[in-house]
């Protein structure tokens, strides 16, 4: 009986738990390179976990790789917008960022709103939207064809109001996701932002590791990035990593730890 329970518990554990435990042990013993390699191996196996991304970010931060640390904290927040550890660690990384942005945010606060709405239950709100929407229209149809009592009218209005609320929550989650799909983090220590996708283009400014950007376009091995205050430039693609984890939204899954070799 005990053996059966143990087997059930083991079966309920997520895949890669043992490797995750080994990586954590390496982290706690100070063997950061081994811990990083183990975390990266888990990601390459397709494990998607906010805790894994948070721990990997912490490992990179301990090694002084602020850009990669910020990237993985951002990924943890992408996977779980309510992850407090990832949010706190990301704030800590940003506190030491070289780049300081001046000027008002260009998106008029849309990103802030999306960030506020993102932790709301996206899946539940989507399903609720479908159900309430269908119910509201069904009641409306019954009332229009056969007439109805006052309670039917009240139920119809209530369903429509509930559907509107669910739609708002879903919009927030969708907006946050859309922004997150274009979010990137500078992982190179320092990189010049140029006027065009070529090394010969004039450099207008420099960005440094850990700075969050929006990736608007990609061409000729360069990515067009926009800072929150509207500053825009082209940087080499390897210097900016997308926050969307590999395997999401059509991104290929990483099969190696190429990121570990980046500056």
């Amino acid at each position, binding site marked *: 009986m005990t053996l059966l329970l143990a087997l059930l518990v083991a079966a309920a554990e997520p895949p890669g738990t043992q490797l995750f435990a080994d990586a954590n042990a390496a982290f706690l013993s100070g063997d950061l390179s081994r811990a990083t390699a183990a975390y990266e191996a888990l990601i390459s196996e397709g*494990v998607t*976990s906010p805790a894994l991304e948070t721990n990997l970010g912490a490992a990179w931060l301990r090694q002084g790789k602020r850009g990669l640390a910020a990237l993985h904290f951002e990924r943890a927040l992408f996977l779980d917008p309510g992850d407090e550890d990832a949010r706190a660690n990301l704030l*800590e990384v940003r506190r030491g960022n070289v780049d300081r942005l001046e000027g008002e945010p260009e998106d008029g606060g849309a990103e802030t709103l999306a960030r506020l709405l993102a932790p709301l239950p996206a*899946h539940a709100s989507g399903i609720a939207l479908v159900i309430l929407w269908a119910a509201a229209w069904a009641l*409306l*149809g019954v009332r*229009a064809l056969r007439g109805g009592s006052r309670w039917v009218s009240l139920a119809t209005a209530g369903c429509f109001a509930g559907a509107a609320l669910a739609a708002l929550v879903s919009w927030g989650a*969708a907006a946050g996701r859309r922004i997150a799909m274009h979010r990137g983090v500078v992982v190179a220590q320092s990189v010049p932002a140029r006027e065009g996708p070529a090394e010969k283009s004039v450099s207008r400014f420099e960005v440094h590791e850990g700075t969050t950007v929006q990736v608007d376009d990609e061409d000729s091995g360069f990515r067009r990035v926009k800072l929150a205050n509207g500053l825009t430039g082209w940087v080499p693609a390897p210097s900016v990593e997308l926050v969307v984890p590999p395997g999401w939204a059509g991104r290929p899954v990483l099969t190696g730890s190429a990121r570990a070799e980046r500056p």
Partner: protein
Amino acid sequence: MRGSEVIPRRTGNALCALLLVALPALAAGEAMLSASTDVRELPLDDTLVLRITAKFASRDESGELDIPVFADFDVVSRARSEQMSFSFGGGASSMARTVITELTLTPKRAGDLTIEPVKLEYRGKKIQTEPIAIHVLPAGQAAPGGGGPDARADAADPFADVHPGQRDLLLRAAVDDDHPFVGQQVTYSLFLLARTNVSSIEKLVSPRLDGFWSVDVEAPQQLVPEQRILDGVPYTSYLLRRRALFPLRAGRATIDPAEVQVLTGFGMLFSRGTSRRSSQPLQIEVQPLPPGKPPGFDAGNVGQWTLTATADPAAVGVGQPITFRLVASGRGNVRDLRLPKLPEIPGVRAYDATTSDKESIERGRVNGTRTIEQLLVPERTGALEIPALSMDVFDPVLKQYRTLKTERIPLRVTPAEGAQAAAASVSQNLLSAGGVRPIRLRLSTVDRAAPPWTQPWFWPLLGIPPFGVAVGLGFAGLRRLLQIDPGEKRVKLARGAAAKRLKGARALLQRGEALAFYAEVARAVTGYLLDKQGIAAAGLTREELAAALRARGHGEETVRRLVRVLDDCDRARFAPGSGEAPAREAMLGRADQVLNELDRGRA
């Protein structure tokens, strides 16, 4: 090089003169010969003066001077003068005669040339001078340390047009250039020429210098004599004052006479006297700057200037200061100089600039340096650049406008060290918020399923309810539209139904069922009246039926025929055998005709 090595021409001449004075008394029958030049280095298109001095102990005799044919020089002009001097020594007097020959020579080629020795034969003795080496530069190249128009003007002899006559004391004012440009330096000199001994200057009143900005170049505290020979008479000249004048506006300017009060005579033993002298007024024609000024040219930028820009250090951390220096130095009036301003540099905060001036006098010329210092603080990292600055000046020597430009200065701004260490933990036990949180030990996975709104079924599913309601409402409406009133249907179908009944009656007729035939004809007519005309004939008398039909607008003849058809049918039904076959056929025709008439009368 002008003068004897580094000594200017005028001073060199003075030294030569002093050398002659200092020559020891010649023994009887002796002669001395010397040769000197005013320069040792000159450009090919310039001239030098070779001065040959021969001194004889005899008043009447003079030797034979042999001036060689110069291989490397052409003789431009030749001048000769003589001086007589007496000296007392050992209770006897002696006389000497000095013959000075000045040759103006121009070199034939550039390079290291030699002036051949000059020979003198006197009372059977031959003496000669040493060869003189001259370095000739290519044409148009000024000799270092002088040369060029300025030096030429500087070397202009202020006493060239002085003819003192019998006057023993003369105050002479001179300028080196009486046609300067606005802002160009003019050197004003005040000399005292004396044939008598001058003990001291008791009072000197300088003229007012309206229309000029001036600065002292030389103001000797002691009288320094310089020997001059004017119209063959030896004079001692004393420089009393030298000022640099910078004309402020174009046009004719007058410098009033200066006045001096001089104490003459020797010490206590000789008679002393006081003399007052005035200089001549001077006229200066100040020229405006020539046309062709560059746009934005500042009239104070006149002179021979250079412009340099530096930034120190060129590589700093962000937020660290950089000192930018813009230095204009050269010859001219630095106080009127207007330097370019540093434009705004993106990413760099510039603080107010400070300006400092420094003036100096070199070889009688006012030199100056204006330095603008500005503190720059880069606010972002990366490669920045201080742009090139330019300044237009008018060079009065070249008589043309020039544009001075500085080089662009690249700056390298690196991240501040403080930012790198911002996340480092502090040494004190400050329990402030922040810091990296500990790692998590439990691996929680998330569902990778895409949100519902990204699924292909989501939006069609949302569209189904309103579509369903719309379809339902549409069907209901359509149904209402397609519904037909039975009364109207009966009206429309009344004639057809009557015709159908008449057809049935014909079938009964063919089968020989006479009673049924007439009954069917009567039903066809009454049915038509009910459906089409809305008249229930069964409950009406013939008169009432006729009246109802007439009320509906039917003609009297039609009504009469209808009534007859109905009456004939009733009669045949209730009186069997009365109807023959031809009459039955006619009945069908009559019934059909009257129905047609009714149908036409009331559609």
